[in-house]
């Protein structure tokens, strides 16, 4: 069990690699953008520590910096200052190609708009991270099929995204996120484009993955979606405003 004291200790140990139990540690992460001469300070010193196997929701009103934080955690973007440790590696000082490698190996993205390649089949979409990992073709097929089985879509793997429903598309995206066995599953408003029934279906997939020990980090502005997570971090004006653990929720799921 993580205690606040323990977390505090990890966050203050600047320039030291955290224990391997901590999959994500950010220390005073700042990110500023130059929007046509005007400096926008999206993140103003975010301190976060997330353990392996946690199921975390990041919430906050628009403009609170949650997208920027998600991009930073997802290694799509690097902070202007502060440290970001991902799985024991200092991602905040990585070059583009190292970041690409980390995105490929450590992170599985699930986007609000699914972001599937329209002209590729479900199977080809799921194979994509393996292509960039240099996995040979036969193994790629097998692993992609396995990942589609995990989200019960192996029957539709020959279909293109436009032949699939929204929920099915998102499940393809989840299979794609999982195929490289990432350290974290990073979901950005995963139900934002889905109706409430389909949303529940997708949330059940996340819950199942979390119960299997997958670290899940989900960015959302919907409280009922965030309620599925066992820990909710709220951002406001580029800093962490609150960080609540839901022990009762964990108990309810029997963990």
């Amino acid at each position, binding site marked *: 069990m993580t205690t606040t004291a323990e977390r505090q200790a990890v966050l203050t140990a600047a320039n030291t690699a955290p224990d391997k139990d901590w999959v994500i540690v950010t220390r005073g992460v700042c990110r500023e953008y130059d929007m046509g001469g005007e400096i926008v300070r999206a993140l103003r010193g975010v301190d976060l520590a997330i353990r392996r196997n946690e199921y975390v929701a990041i919430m906050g009103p628009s403009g609170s910096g949650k997208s920027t934080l998600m*991009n930073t955690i*997802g290694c*799509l*973007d690097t902070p202007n200052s502060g440290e970001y440790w991902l799985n024991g590696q200092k991602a905040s000082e990585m070059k*583009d*190609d190292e970041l*690409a*490698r980390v*995105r*490929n*190996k450590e992170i599985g*993205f699930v*986007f609000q708009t699914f*972001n*599937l*390649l329209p*002209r590729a089949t479900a199977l080809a979409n799921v194979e*994509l*991270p393996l*292509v*960039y*990992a*240099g996995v040979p073709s036969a193994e790629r097929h097998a692993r992609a099929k396995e990942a589609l089985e995990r989200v019960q879509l192996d029957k539709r793997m020959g279909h293109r995204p436009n032949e699939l429903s929204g929920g099915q598309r998102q499940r393809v995206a989840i299979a*794609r996120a999982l195929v*490289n066995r990432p350290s974290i599953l990073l979901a950005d408003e995963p139900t934002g484009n889905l109706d409430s029934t389909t949303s529940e279906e997708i949330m059940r997939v996340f819950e199942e993955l979390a119960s299997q020990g997958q670290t899940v980090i989900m960015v959302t502005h919907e409280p009922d979606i965030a309620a599925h997570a066992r820990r909710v971090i709220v951002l406001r004006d580029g800093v962490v405003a609150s960080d609540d653990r839901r022990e009762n929720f964990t108990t309810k799921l029997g963990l």
Partner: protein
Amino acid sequence: MKFFEAVRLAFATIRVQKLKSFFTALGVCIGVMFLITVVSIVEGMGKYMENELVGKLIAINSFELRHRPSINIGDVSRETWLEYNRRPRILESDVEPVVAALPTDALWAMYSNGSIQVESSFGKPRSAQITAFDGQYLEIKKVGVTTGRSFSQVDISTGTSVVVIGPDLAKRLFPDLNAVDRQVKIGGRFYTVIGVGESLGSAFGMSFDNYVYAPFRSPVHRLLNPGAHQIDGMIVQVATAEALPDAQESVRGIMRARHQLRPAQKDNFVLETSDTALEFWNKIKSYLVLAGIALPAIGLVVGAIVIMNIMLVAVAERTHEIGIRKALGAKRRDILLQFMIEASTLSTFGAAMGIALGAIGAYAIRTMTPMPTYVAPWSIVVGVLIGAGVGIISGVYPASRASLLDPVAALRQE
């Protein structure tokens, strides 16, 4: 990402956009097509020169001894020309010592030639290439006689007023008549046609069948040589190519001695082989090939610009896709490779079409015009390399733009 994956991806993209890809590749296709066609014409003429023309003009394993070259390569300077004119002429008296130095199985002839008007009572007068010779000139040049007879030993040694004329000349001077035993007038004197020779063909619309052969000692030789006992040259044919250098060296030795040249002095005569003629042709050919490459190059530049433009559009269109790929772990190199290979595949595909069309064009020219064409294997290789090269060059800029896209910004773009 492996190279093969990138090629597969490129093919998939091209397959999806067949028509667009076709038009994109068209520029390179046309450029390569012209390259292949033009080079095939130049090469075809080259083959023709090497195999047919030079063999006819200058016989195989032979060389000619002349006081100055009959074929001049490039511009001859005034000084060189004056030096040629100061050279002593080859004389009848040189023939015997030269022949004595040759291997016994060598064929030889001495000759003088020039272009002179030939008249008959049946047709318009015509200027013809007249060669007066002694020796085995017709054997060396492989000129046979189709009707009538060739020169007898007596004709040659006594210099009777008889001639063998070419088929074109026979047709002009004696339309619809048999030329044999009829008379032609050269330089005011009458000569009896004893035979009509074989056709030597033509090159570039110029007939080689406008010839007259006559015995050296016949009166015609006075029209050909300004000074007494002067000859234009000698032709020597040896049995094998290996014997050629030795024979040339012994003739050179004899001639240097007869011209009393000191070791430091240069030869004041030339020994021309068929290589000399080919050298001349190769010089022309190099210019033709250059022109043949320079003109299609313009087409290829246009093709490259088209491909670059299309690739830039493709990068803009597929920004979101690039973002997805980057998010999933595509490195800069992977994106660069993807677009470079797509551009190269497009242009190589265009080049392949161009090669096919060029080969068809070359075949069409060969069958429909008198121009000989030959599709050289090297031009196909060059065509493919140009295709790939144009793709790489025109792909570099769009691909590097794609690879440098910021993944966050790219993902945001729809």
